[in-house]
C-alpha cells in the first residue's frame, strides 16, 4: 500500500490518544502518593469519589474531559479522511487542536488557573469548529456536484 497524504491526519489523532493514556500514568502516580500519605478513605474508595483527596479529583476531572470533545475530534478526523478532505488546512487544524489540548491538560494538571484553562479550552473549541466546517463544506460541495 502506498502511503496517502490524507493518512497524515492519523498522527495528531494518535498523539492525543497517547496523551490520554499518559494521563492515566499521572493518575496512578498521584493516587499512590496520596494513598501512602494516608489521605484516602479506604472504606469508601471503591465506590465513592469523595474518598479521594482533591489532587486525585483534579486528575479525574481532566481524564473525564479527555472523553468529551476529543471524541468528537476523533470522529471528525475519521470523517475528513473518509471524505478525502484531509488537506493541508485540516492537518494544520488537527495539530493545532492537539496543541491546545496539550496546553489545556498541562494547565489542568499543573495548577488551578481557571482563566488560562478556559482560554486553552476555548481555543480548542474554535479549532474543532473549523474542522467541522471543513467536513460540512465537503459534504455540501459533494451534494452540489
Amino acid at each position, binding site marked *: 500500500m502506498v502511503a496517502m497524504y490524507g493518512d497524515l491526519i492519523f498522527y495528531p489523532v494518535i498523539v492525543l490518544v497517547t496523551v490520554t493514556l499518559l494521563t492515566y500514568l499521572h493518575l496512578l502516580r498521584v493516587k499512590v502518593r496520596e494513598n501512602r500519605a494516608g489521605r484516602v478513605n479506604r472504606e469508601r474508595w471503591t465506590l465513592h469519589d469523595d474518598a479521594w483527596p482533591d489532587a486525585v479529583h483534579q486528575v479525574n476531572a481532566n481524564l473525564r474531559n479527555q472523553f468529551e470533545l476529543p471524541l468528537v475530534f476523533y470522529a471528525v478526523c475519521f470523517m475528513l479522511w*473518509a471524505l478525502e478532505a484531509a488537506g493541508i488546512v485540516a492537518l494544520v487544524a488537527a495539530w493545532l487542536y492537539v496543541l491546545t489540548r496539550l496546553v489545556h491538560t498541562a494547565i489542568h494538571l499543573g495548577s488551578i488557573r481557571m482563566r488560562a484553562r478556559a482560554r486553552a479550552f476555548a481555543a480548542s473549541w474554535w479549532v474543532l469548529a473549523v474542522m467541522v466546517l471543513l467536513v460540512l463544506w465537503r459534504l455540501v460541495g459533494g451534494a452540489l456536484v
Partner: protein
Amino acid sequence: MTRDWILVPAIVQVLLTLLIYVRLITVKVREMRAGRVNIDRHGVHEDAWPDSVRIINNNIRNQFELPVLFYVVSMALWLLDAVHWVALLAAAAFVASRITHAAIHLSTNYIPNRRRAFTVGWWVLMFMSLLVLWELARRAAGL
C-alpha cells in the same frame, strides 16, 4: 457520494454538541457576574456551580454517551458501504430525537418528555446497530 450522506446527521449531532458549549459559557459568565459561583471550589468541585450550570454540564456529559455510539455505528455503515435510505432516515431520526432531548433538558427539563425523547433515540440507535449486523450477515451469506 450516497454513502457520504450518512456523515450529514453525524456532523449535525457534532454541531449540536458544540452549540451547547456556547450555552454553557453564556450561563457560566452570567452566574459568575451574579456572584453565584463559589470561586474557592470551582476549579475542582462541580458543587461550586449553581444548578443552572450543572444542568448544562449534565446535558453535555450526556452528549458523550449514546451519541458516541451513534458516531461509531454511522462510521461502521460508511466503512461497510451499507448506507441506504433506511439508514439515512434512521440517522436523521436519531439526531432529531437528540435535538428534542437537549431542547427539553435545557428549557423545561420536564423529565417524562425528556425520557421519551431519549427512548426514541435509544430505539433508533438499536435499529441502526441491527442494520450493521444485517449487512454483516448478508455478507457472510455471500449475498
